[in-house]
């Protein structure tokens, strides 16, 4: 049962998700890796939506140059650990959600066990190797996750249900490198918002997830595409020769 306060707070959501859906969100546990540009938007929307338990992992500290896109942090929190800073913002947004702070970087040694404590993981981290590690770890743990990437005004998002849909390695093969450098805030916001929507859909069983396809868009040209993806039987992470 939702409390009167919850009914008031989530009135606009209830008309879409129903009480059952809202309760599913309250039971939900989501881990967001990285409280950067993508993580900022995802975390704020997850907290606002009433996801019951939200964990945020980040070992970095807030710098002034982050503030143009990492909207969960504020100028008065420069130097603070990003996971702690993000937790403060989420608590202010919605005191009804439980927030777990992991003020460190995750690794291939720590992430599989950590991911198993959650229903859904969002990749808001930087860098090719880290993103592949997150995919591999979630596949190994059997935990659904959303992969996000940004660059400039471009962003792309896909969701993987391990063992059932393509993982990041299936999608990108053996990438020789990534396109990176700098990103404008709106691209991060779009990616993080889509990732939050994926988590909400997964937790409530509503809608169609971005599985078996990669949504990619360029805010500079306003062109977007849905790239179909297939599981790779030879995938070293999730294929027949992989860990699944």
């Amino acid at each position: 049962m939702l409390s009167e306060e919850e009914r008031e707070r989530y009135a606009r959501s209830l008309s879409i998700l129903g009480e059952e859906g809202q309760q599913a969100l309250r039971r939900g546990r989501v881990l967001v890796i990285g409280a950067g540009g993508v993580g900022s938007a995802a975390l704020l929307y997850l907290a606002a939506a009433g996801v019951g338990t939200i964990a945020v992992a980040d070992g970095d500290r807030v710098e002034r140059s982050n503030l143009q896109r990492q909207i969960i942090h504020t100028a008065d929190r420069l130097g603070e650990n990003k996971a702690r800073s993000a937790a403060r913002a989420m608590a202010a947004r919605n005191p009804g959600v439980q927030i777990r702070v992991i003020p460190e970087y995750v690794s291939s040694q720590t992430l599989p066990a950590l991911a198993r404590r959650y229903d859904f993981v969002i990749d808001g981290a930087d860098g090719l190797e880290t993103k592949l590690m997150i995919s591999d770890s979630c596949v190994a743990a059997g935990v659904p996750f959303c992969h996000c990437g940004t660059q400039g005004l471009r962003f792309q998002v896909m969701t993987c249900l391990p063992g059932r849909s393509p993982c990041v390695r299936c999608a990108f093969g053996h990438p020789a490198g990534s396109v990176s450098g700098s990103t404008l805030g709106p691209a991060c916001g779009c990616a993080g918002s889509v990732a939050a929507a994926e988590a909400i859909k997964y937790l409530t069983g509503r809608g169609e997830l971005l599985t078996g396809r990669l949504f990619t868009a360029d805010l500079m040209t306003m062109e977007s595409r849905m790239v179909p993806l297939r599981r790779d039987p030879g995938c070293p992470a999730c294929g027949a020769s992989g860990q699944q």
Partner: protein
Amino acid sequence: MEITVDGERKTYPRPLTVQEWMDLEQVRNQEVAIIHVNDRDIPPDRRKSTLLQEGDRLQLLYFLGDS
């Protein structure tokens, strides 16, 4: 030869390998570009030997590494 590139139909006067297509279209950052043909990744070492076929569906992707 007619193929679909990023969802749009395109016609080319002769058959092309993946590498020839990339050069013809002046694909940028070729070293990190990812090419899917009919939803399958074509590794860089197979670009010169993979001949595109009539009706193939090609997608050009990049791994976006920022957040």
